[in-house]
């Protein structure tokens, strides 16, 4: 009899739907059906058992091919790379559980590495804004139960967070919002007329790169000041109309996305959005929330904050104190400036996401990829270590975009022999401790680990 696993969390986006029902074949080896998930979430589950998986670590050979090695050999190689590098960079964690992130931090601290996550190239600018200006926010259930005005600014959930609008914001009927969509006003602000804009009551086509000016205008208007006839491509009358809706809301939430944190000014666009939210709380209740991308990209920010007080871009190379300054200690900046001499790509694809110059610099040094699947990064690595897929094969805690922890389940076992991120990092940590002890006992550990560097041009 196929088995149904209920209340399964989805390892796709920051919406963290936890209502999936997954049907598993009676031998527990195949995922047959996934209910309630969006098309992308669905695909992640089916992919796990749909095709061939990498079952052993693979080490680059002189002819450029990969050779399978044991986990013990891979752990030894990884530990030696970390131990011998002067400034290794451990980056990724978009698709790992918090237990794995905590273990990775232990490794980074022991190795004297820089520890960073995908927020660095995503919502990291939101962190900068939060450092400077705070974060008046709420959980998604608050929005569902109370909000009568919703703003999506520079975000397109219709594509990036497929069930966001139906679970939390526009459509659901909540405690004080029994009429669902009918009881809510939807405002979409975006340079592009996206599919999300299709459902808006009001759509403002802000001039690309000029969100900051539009926020400034809203703030001036809310305080009763005059503004020019047109700001950022929007007519004054429309700004006044929207400002009035914002002030008269019972409860509002601004959801913002990459449109703010990756256009000119980045963190400042978010920063002034926070200022506007704060101003509006002098009139009524407003909250703001970043549309975090991956299902657990909020996780490393949480875990590393309680461990070190910094959510990302942690420079642990000084061994006795952590330092953080995005712009310097952020992965892409380090890579572009050629500041690091070893690279760990964990549960992400820096090969695909980083600028080509950054990848070229990183490729001059050992590059290790930890990922369940084959990706661009794994194919240019010196070592690829497969791990189980969190949310499918490995359970654990993940943090939703509103910082709510969701306990994920496992629905099937990982392929035989494949270990979790957490176990992998615990083993690397153990090996690092041994190397340290060996070095303390008899001087420098033998420098070059076995195996050969991959071709340096990606």
């Amino acid at each position, binding site marked *: 009899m196929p088995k149904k696993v209920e209340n399964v969390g989805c390892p796709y986006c920051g919406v963290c739907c936890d209502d999936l029902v997954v049907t598993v074949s009676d031998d527990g080896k195949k995922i047959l059906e996934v209910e309630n998930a969006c098309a992308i979430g669905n695909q992640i589950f089916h992919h796990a058992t749909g095709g061939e998986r990498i079952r052993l670590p693979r080490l680059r050979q002189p002819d450029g091919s990969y050779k399978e090695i044991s986990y013990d050999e891979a752990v030894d190689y990884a530990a030696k790379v970390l131990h011998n590098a002067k*400034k290794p960079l451990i980056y990724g964690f978009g698709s790992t559980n918090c237990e794995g992130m905590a273990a990775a931090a232990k490794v980074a601290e022991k190795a004297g590495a820089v520890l960073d996550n995908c927020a660095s190239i995503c919502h990291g600018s939101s962190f900068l804004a939060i450092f400077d200006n705070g974060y008046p926010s709420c959980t998604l259930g608050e929005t569902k139960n109370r909000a009568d005005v919703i703003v999506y600014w520079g975000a397109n959930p219709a594509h990036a967070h497929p069930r966001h609008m139906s679970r939390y914001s526009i459509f659901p009927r909540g405690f004080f919002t029994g009429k669902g969509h009918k009881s809510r006003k939807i405002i979409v602000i975006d340079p592009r007329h996206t599919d999300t804009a299709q459902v808006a009551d009001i759509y403002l086509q802000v001039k690309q790169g*000029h969100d900051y000016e539009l926020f400034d205008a809203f703030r001036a208007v*809310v305080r009763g000041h005059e*503004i020019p006839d047109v700001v950022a491509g929007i007519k004054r009358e429309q700004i006044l109309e929207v400002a009035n809706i914002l002030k008269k809301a019972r409860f509002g939430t601004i959801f913002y996305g990459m449109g703010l944190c990756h256009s000119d000014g980045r963190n*400042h666009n978010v920063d002034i959005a926070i200022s506007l939210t704060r101003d509006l709380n002098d009139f009524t209740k407003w909250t703001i929330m970043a549309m975090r991308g991956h299902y657990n990209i909020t996780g490393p920010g949480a875990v590393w904050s309680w461990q070190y007080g910094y959510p990302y871009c942690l420079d642990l190379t000084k061994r006795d104190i952590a330092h953080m300054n995005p712009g310097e200690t952020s992965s892409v900046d380090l890579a572009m*400036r050629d500041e690091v001499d070893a690279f760990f790509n964990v549960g992400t694809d820096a090969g695909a996401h980083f600028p080509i110059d950054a990848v070229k610099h990183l490729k001059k040094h050992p590059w290790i990829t930890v990922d369940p699947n084959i990706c661009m990064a794994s194919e240019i690595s010196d070592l690829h270590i497969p791990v189980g897929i969190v949310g499918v094969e490995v359970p654990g805690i993940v943090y939703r975009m509103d910082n709510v922890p969701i306990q994920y389940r496992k629905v099937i076992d990982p392929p035989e022999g494949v270990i979790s991120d957490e176990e992998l990092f615990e083993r690397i940590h153990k090996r690092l401790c041994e190397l340290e002890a060996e070095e303390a006992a008899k001087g420098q550990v033998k420098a070059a680990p076995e195996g050969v560097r991959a071709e340096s041009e990606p």
Partner: protein
Amino acid sequence: MKTVTLTLTNPSELFLEGQNITPDNFAGKKAAEIAALDVWEGKQKSPLGKYFSVEGDGGATAAETKIVLRGDCTRTKRIGQQMTAGEIVIEGSADMYIGGWMKGGKIHVKGNVDSFCGIGMEGGELLVDGNAGSHLGSSPRGEWRGMQGGMIRVAGSVGNDTATFINGGTIVIGGDADIHVSTHGEGGTVVVKGNAKGRVGGQMVKGDIYVYGTIENPLPGFQMVGEVEQEVDGEKARFVHHIGDLGERHPVSRGKTVYANLYTRI
């Protein structure tokens, strides 16, 4: 005043962190002791002398110590960090955090500097003959008490985020400024003698900005209130006076609301 000359003879593989290169740390030390001070290359701590040749002894105090850096310091960070007195001359260019958290003394860089120079500055003087990167005279992450005092003068152009959260002191830029000047400012003065790209004075509470050239994208939160004549950096000129950021909070002093001032040269 005694002079210590550091010459970069053995460049590092990675970037160097030289927060110990200050008159405060060199004062009272012989050349050999200075050469033994720590610098960092990633997690590797080494003596300064591994990379630099050191000539001359430090003075009795920081104020009596001058440091001259020769050779390519474009991969050396944090020179002059937290210095309180004395003088540093960098003959060429240098990397990040030059004069960061500086309290006194003087740094003269004859080339360019990278980002975060003069960050968290409380006093002293930082002169750059070339260009500066981003976050010049800015506040460290999350710190609402930005530049408190001192003087930064950059002959060339600067990157973005100049003088964020500035509270006091003066920054004079000979060339152009990229976006965000004095964002969240609550005091101090920034003079841009070239053009400013935009977002000048956003979320600013108090303080002064002068722009001699054009502002490509002025903010809607600044309003023109008249024309004034003012003496700036030793010369008198006429300016259009704007107040703002009207979207931001503003304190009331003696019954009058205090705004930030933006002066654009006529």
